[in-house]
């Protein structure tokens, strides 16, 4: 079976990459393919890259609140012919309340400031497999 492909990126002007780099590395170490889109993307840029690259999961690093304002547009763009590329969010600014509200909108998982890298890796893997099975 081909390896799980994950896109890692950030939205708008959010550019503190500490978390994104650490997660990208951990996913690669676990045998996944990481498309590192990096900084400075609008929702359309993320969606285009995700669909072109055929990724299983989109992972966004969130170190500013901008993601909350971009999320609806991104989720809509990732929904193609009834199926949607799952989105996971990680970052220190994601509060428990934010996690509840974005999960209600359709985000597959969120990782707050206390998340372990191992937990991120296993969750991404589980979500990717479930999406492939669907």
């Amino acid at each position, binding site marked *: 079976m081909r390896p799980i492909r994950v896109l890692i990126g950030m939205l708008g002007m959010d*550019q503190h990459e*500490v978390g994104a*780099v650490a997660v990208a590395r951990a996913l690669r170490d676990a045998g996944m393919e990481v498309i590192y889109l990096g900084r400075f993307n609008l929702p359309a840029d993320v969606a285009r890259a995700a669909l072109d690259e055929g990724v299983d999961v989109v992972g966004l690093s969130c170190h500013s*609140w901008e993601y909350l304002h971009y999320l609806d547009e991104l989720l809509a763009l990732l929904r193609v012919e009834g199926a949607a590329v799952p989105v996971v969010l990680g970052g220190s*600014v994601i509060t428990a309340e934010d996690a509840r509200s974005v999960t209600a909108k359709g985000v597959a998982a969120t990782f707050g*400031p206390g998340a372990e890298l191992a937990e991120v890796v296993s969750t991404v893997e589980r979500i990717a497999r479930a999406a492939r099975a669907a």
Partner: protein
Amino acid sequence: MSERSSASGIPLRPCYGPADTAGLDLEERLGEPGRYPFTRGVRAADDRRAGWIQRELSGEGDPRRSNAQLHMLLAKGQTGLDVIGDTPTVACMDPDHPFARHAIGTQGVSLCCLPDYLELYRDLPLDRITLSHSLPPLFTVAALHCVARQRGISPAALRGSVVQAPYYCEDTGYALQLPFELRERMSVDSIEFAAAEMPRFHAFLEDTYYISDGGLDAVEEMALGFVEIRGLVRRLLERGLPVDRFAPRIAILVNCRMDFFEEIAKIRATRRLFARMMREEFGARDPRSLAVNVAAHTSGMSLTAQQPVNNVVRGTVQALALVLAGVQAIEISAFDEAYRTPSPQAHEVALRTQQVIHLESNVTQVADPLGGSYFVEWLTDEMERRIETRLREIEARGEPAALAESGYFRRIFQDAMERHARALSSGELVRVGVNRFRVPESEDALLREVAESKIEPYHLRVEEIRRHREARDAARLRARLSALRERAVDRTANLTPAVIEAFEAGATVGEMTGVLRMAHGQPADPFGRLADPL
């Protein structure tokens, strides 16, 4: 790593004694406070200015809201101002850029044209307080020059600083998307201009805080800082500026993490290394050129989203280290740092922390109280040696421009980020509430509501800036922007006077930056979303 070690990996022993400092000529290596080599501080022990500038990072929303914030902080006893721009402002982008929209005013103040700066500083005593800025230096120096004149204050009376980090900003989360040559020139031009026009202003504030708060250790922080200081000094000398004309206004803004003695030793070592370097390598003679003012921010990265109240304690420990090291200005990263720029409550706690240390602990009565400690002197020496070794090693690899181009610096920052993440995740780096003594989320309530309250993006700014653009004299603006481009094409001219003239014709920072990019053969908008301003 040995069983005991400092945060940057220096092996430590359980106790230090006379044998550890026996090889050091302490008289030569310490001197007296206020005397070469300034290990013990830049001010004489009986200097009446002893003490430090107490300030907190400020700026949120639009210039009007930030102005109110600055007035409030001065009313609470703050002794200087410290302004940071929001992410678009720091990246030289106007608020109506398509990428800027949801970041307007959320992590600093939105500033893009001269009326913004006038509003930011409205009714503030600009000639009586120091104004520190985490903002693009060329535009800040130019705007302050205009604001002072419009307020009837001589620019020569302005005190304060603006941060410089031209070599590393692209790689550390503050990308300007400008070519190296232009970034360096914008720094050198602003420093040269301020040396002549604003001689009390520290336009050359080397900022090692923000380059290091992604995970660099204290040795890497200062080694990279010195590489940049030395690079900019060389460029200024190449312009024919005498070293004693600008060196008195070099200052360094350092980080302060949790390793108490290592941070103190770092600051003492930095002063000594700077003094020796300026005297022996760059031929400075004015004692003020040898004595470097050190300001500090306590580490935002050491703070945690879990149990925000613990961050108050961290800030206190770090600020005490800075006071004992004898710095000239302190900003404590506030307890809500993991989530936001400081709330009014966090501002107040951080400022009160400084005031309690200053006025209640009695630690300020004696200069360099740790001087002569076996351990502190040994560690100061060790830090100096390691910082110098590392900086020479980097310089031996090539010119900063080539190193930036090749990704050498970026790798240092990336490795540090990964190292930090691994150390935190493995528990090697202890954070109470994160990898030790965690509490369930349901019990983690103290100060949480304050820390999590959000600042909404100032979408109204988009319309405001559009109206500003429409109200300008288009022909005059175009002439001034063209003049700026011509200046920029002529690589020997100083850009600052042309930036001042463009500001006065209503130009925005985004437009001017676009024109500068064009003069260096690049598209005006690196995101490819805007039309060229000329």
